[in-house]
């Protein structure tokens, strides 16, 4: 016999009767959320990489201290990749007022491959995008150079042996951030003019750069080809390894997105569980009848499994479609950020969506359904013939397994996943315990109250397992809503605040010791309050403990580079305000004995532990001291920060230059020009461009996360609806009896209101506790953001939930009351 046909028919009939809507909705939401985020992150990751690309004006940049052989370009072109070349060097340009040290960058017509050049044609005109660099015979200069040299657009500058006309003011250069530590004012020229200047010879110091861009796979395979061919003086940098500030922001955005998906998964999982539970409860009698009518158990099992799989497949596909649409809407919302030429999303998320749907459905619904097949046919004759109590242990285990698998799979970060799973299990256990306690309390209260109150509270206490399910459902729904509030109001805001509008956008470096005080005064006079001017000492790490540091000790290329490179060391009495001591303790005062504080990330990379003695080679001698604290540094704060800081005693007497950062409002070119005149050796660095990009990631990230959380919201509402539905069945019978016994509608309505409001209050209380704890944990553990407790959350959570659930539950159950008692009784029979 055709089991498939029966399964399909039964499914169609169940669907038509409305029995499956709730479960379907829960499933569709889960799948839609997972696929939307899947489709979306697919594209976001691409766009995030693009943004990384803008910072190096390409997808791959090859730097060299000598001219780069043409073979590298040729190979790239042969692979269908775009190329461009730039040469950067320090030189002097001459105007009527005299010479000036500048940083020249000669670019070919291909530049930039990624990102945008912007220039201003006049003093007061707005800047506009330029498709390529200056044409031959022209230079573009930074506006402060105009002030420094007293020249204007249209004047000519002596560049080496030739003269070039100032064609425009350069306002944005995508890869400006790369030249971080060697900036004099920028002068950009056409590469074709380079030879005429005579500035570049075999012995001249310059950075030659070959830029590559194209499809991801091609770039990656080119990089594989390139790696063994890189000469010692060359290095290659991919887009994704862009600036740490940027990487931090992107990383956070990704974490938020994944967190949002996981939350949806959890909440929708609860809805699926509740809906499955109800479905199974309602099928018990049907199964007994079918067995009476001659259906063997294994036939029923096959029918059940098939029906469930068919249902899961259909619902999942609908969910995928919805997810795809949602993703399209999301991309539309963020179009400015993502760019139009994004590749369409791949089909992979479809698979993810369907798998998620099936796994969660089977995990939650299959065990109880299978146990249902054990129902004795006797039940059709004798109502009291027991139904097999679905073994709570098996059901829970299957659900936990399904959810755990999905979380592990979706989180992409096993530590996060395990923490989450542990958290969820802990929360669930606490929830059940609390509800049982509270229900008992309600029972006790019922004994002391009268009338409506007594009926309502007793109803809650009468079915402890039902109450656990129901209050659990409400609790999880409210928790979703509150978490939404926590994430929206507290976490996302903390994230936005981590980069305030007055975040430092200028760095001053190469400040000489004798300039520190005059500079401080100058900045103060100019209305710039922030005057943390920090010492900076170069030093190479030679020993960790007794072990001599060799680059070859490290597998990780980053560690290897760090091990060879000179560190920027600093000393101070207080840690920087955005630092957090993760282990050990900061020294008490300026007179503390020699010791170091190391940033956690680098400590991990280089294998430095608390208590290790570090030895640095500083200006011709060794200095050493123990590591007494490890610090977490918020790199995207744009404050000056150091990997390694010592107590003053250790480095105070070494030769140092100084560095500071501050916020300069837009349009302060004159101030920078004045500063450059007064302190000629000081180099100002403008990081506005990077700052803007990071801020954009944050803004868009916040939007994307809110969008994804909308799914959580829907899932939360579903769960609550499922909670109300869960007790409807029992109630039908109960109310019929109560009404035949003469209970008035008004009294029943009152008792309903009391019962649901009490359930809502309890759920709200539990949810508030969980939401605040979760928010706090997330902020501290996952996002490293400041978290503040939110009293409103409690008010809203507890009162709002009592009110909302009291109202919704009463309204949903009200139709039962209007029906004549006989009908209610008969249907219950």
């Amino acid at each position, binding site marked *: *016999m*055709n089991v498939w046909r*029966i399964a399909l*028919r039964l499914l169609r*009939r*169940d669907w038509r*009767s409305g*029995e499956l809507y709730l479960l379907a909705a829960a499933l569709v939401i889960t799948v839609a959320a997972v696929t939307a985020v899947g489709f979306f992150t697919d594209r976001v990751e691409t766009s995030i990489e693009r943004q990384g690309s803008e910072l190096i004006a390409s997808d791959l940049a090859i730097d060299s201290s000598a001219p780069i052989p043409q073979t590298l370009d040729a190979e790239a072109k042969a692979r269908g990749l775009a190329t461009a070349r730039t040469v950067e060097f320090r030189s002097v340009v001459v105007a009527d007022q005299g010479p000036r040290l500048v940083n020249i960058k000669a670019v070919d017509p291909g530049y930039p491959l990624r990102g945008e050049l912007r220039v201003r044609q006049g003093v007061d005109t707005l800047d506009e995008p330029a498709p390529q660099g200056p044409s031959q015979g022209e230079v573009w200069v930074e506006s402060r150079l105009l002030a420094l040299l007293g020249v204007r657009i249209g004047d000519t500058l002596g560049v080496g042996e030739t003269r070039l006309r100032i064609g425009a003011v350069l306002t944005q250069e995508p890869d400006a951030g790369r030249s971080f530590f060697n900036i004099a004012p920028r002068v950009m020229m056409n590469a074709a003019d380079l030879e005429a200047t005579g500035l570049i010879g075999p012995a001249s110091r310059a950075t030659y750069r070959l830029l590559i861009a194209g499809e991801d796979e091609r770039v990656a395979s080119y990089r594989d080809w390139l790696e063994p061919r890189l000469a010692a003086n060359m290095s290659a940098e991919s887009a994704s390894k862009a600036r740490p500030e940027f990487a931090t922001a992107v990383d956070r955005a990704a974490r938020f997105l994944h967190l949002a998906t996981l939350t949806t998964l959890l909440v929708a999982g609860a809805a699926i569980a509740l809906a499955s539970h109800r479905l199974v409860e309602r099928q018990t*009698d*049907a199964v*007994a*009848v*079918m*067995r*009476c*009518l*001659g*259906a*063997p*158990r*294994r*036939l029923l099992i096959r029918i059940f499994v098939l029906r469930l799989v068919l249902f899961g497949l259909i619902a999942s596909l609908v969910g995928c479609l919805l997810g795809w649409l949602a993703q399209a809407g999301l991309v539309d919302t963020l179009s400015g950020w993502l760019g139009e030429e994004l590749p369409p999303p791949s089909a992979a998320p479809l698979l993810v969506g369907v798998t998620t749907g099936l796994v969660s459905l089977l995990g939650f619904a299959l065990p109880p359904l299978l146990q249902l097949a054990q129902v*004795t*046919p*006797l039940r*059709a*004759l*004798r109502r009291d013939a027991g139904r097999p109590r679905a073994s709570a242990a098996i059901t829970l285990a299957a659900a936990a397994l399904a959810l755990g698998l999905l979380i592990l799979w979706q989180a992409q970060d096993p530590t996060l996943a395990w923490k989450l799973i542990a958290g969820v299990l802990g929360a669930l256990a606490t929830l059940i315990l609390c509800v049982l306690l509270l229900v008992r309390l309600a029972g006790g209260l019922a004994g002391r109250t009268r009338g409506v109150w007594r009926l309502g509270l007793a109803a809650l206490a009468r079915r402890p397992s039902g109450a656990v399910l129901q209050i659990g459902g409400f609790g999880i729904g409210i928790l979703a809503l509150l978490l939404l509030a926590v994430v929206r109001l507290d976490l996302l805001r903390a994230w936005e605040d981590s980069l305030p509008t007055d975040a430092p956008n200028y760095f001053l470096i190469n400040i000489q010791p004798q300039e520190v005080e005059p500079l401080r005064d100058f900045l103060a006079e100019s209305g710039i309050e922030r005057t943390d001017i920090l010492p900076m000492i170069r030093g190479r790490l030679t020993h960790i403990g007794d072990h001599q540091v060799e680059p070859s000790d490290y597998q990780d290329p980053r560690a290897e580079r760090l091990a060879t490179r000179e560190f920027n060391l600093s000393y101070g009495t207080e840690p920087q305000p955005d630092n957090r001591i993760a282990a050990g303790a900061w020294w008490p005062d300026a007179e503390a004995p020699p010791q170091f504080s190391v940033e956690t990330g680098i400590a991990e990379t280089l294998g430095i532990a608390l208590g290790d003695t570090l030895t640095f080679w500083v200006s011709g001698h060794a200095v050493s001291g123990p590591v007494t604290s490890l610090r977490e540094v918020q790199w995207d704060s744009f404050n000056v920060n150091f990997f390694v800081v010592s107590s003053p005693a250790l480095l105070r007497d070494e030769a140092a230059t100084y560095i500071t950062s501050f916020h300069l409002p837009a349009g302060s070119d004159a101030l920078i020009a004045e500063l450059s005149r007064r302190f000629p050796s000081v180099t100002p660095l403008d990081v506005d461009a990077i700052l803007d990009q990071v801020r954009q990631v944050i803004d868009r990230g916040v939007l994307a996360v809110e969008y994804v959380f909308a799914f959580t919201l829907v899932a939360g509402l579903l769960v609550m609806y499922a909670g109300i539905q869960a007790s409807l069945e029992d109630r039908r019978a109960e109310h019929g009896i109560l009404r035949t016994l003469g209970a008035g509608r008004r009294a029943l309505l009152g008792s309903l209101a009391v019962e649901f409001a009490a359930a809502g209050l309890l759920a709200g209380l539990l949810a508030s506790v969980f939401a605040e704890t979760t928010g706090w944990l997330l902020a501290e553990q996952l996002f490293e953001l400041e978290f503040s407790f939110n009293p409103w959350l409690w008010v809203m959570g507890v009162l709002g939930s009592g009110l909302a659930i009291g109202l919704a539950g009463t309204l949903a159950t009200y139709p039962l009351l209007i029906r004549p008692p006989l009908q209610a009784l*008969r*249907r219950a*029979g």
Partner: protein
Amino acid sequence: MSEPRTVSQAIGLGKHVNGPAGGLTILDGLDLEIGAGEAVAILGASGSGKSTLLSLLAGLDEATAGEVWLCGRRIADLDEDGRSELRGGRVGFVFQNFQLLPTLTARENVLLPLELTGTEGAAERADAALERVGLTARAGHYPRQLSGGEQQRVAIARAYAPRPSVLFADEPTGNLDQQTGEQIIELLLELREAADAALILVTHDPRLAERCDRRLRMRDGRLESLT
């Protein structure tokens, strides 16, 4: 294969249960034999064990003593699934509380046992059965849209559609008013005749019992003949 003359038989049937208030012997050495096409009424006080007897005769439950034969097979020789298969298509049920599946329409309820046993021409049979009970017009209605009497008629159509050899009816009129109850019994007897099925009818109402071939009373765990 020819059906045996006796469709249902109990020999020395006993049922003992251990309840929370100690042991209880519901059936005690009960004998019964029902021939093909015979209509037997079982009367007895509430709680005397009538439903228990039905469930044992139909193989829904296991006896603690004696044996039960159904359609030529000994129940004790079969496992749960074997008993289900034995019932399929051979045994019909009508319950006091109708036991229609609420998510299926009247027609689909009648179709269900036919589909579950993979019967040929299920749709035609179901339609014919519905016509027999006079509910063709209500075929697309859900149980909740039907009156009690109509629901029971659907249940009878469901029981009758697979053309069973035995029909068990446990107080089929218990939830119905007098007049409707009589109609239902009428229908049951009519269909029994048409299908040549045995009918085992549990009822409280001596007037309804009158219409059966044989009347038995359940007392002290045994059956006594009333004619």
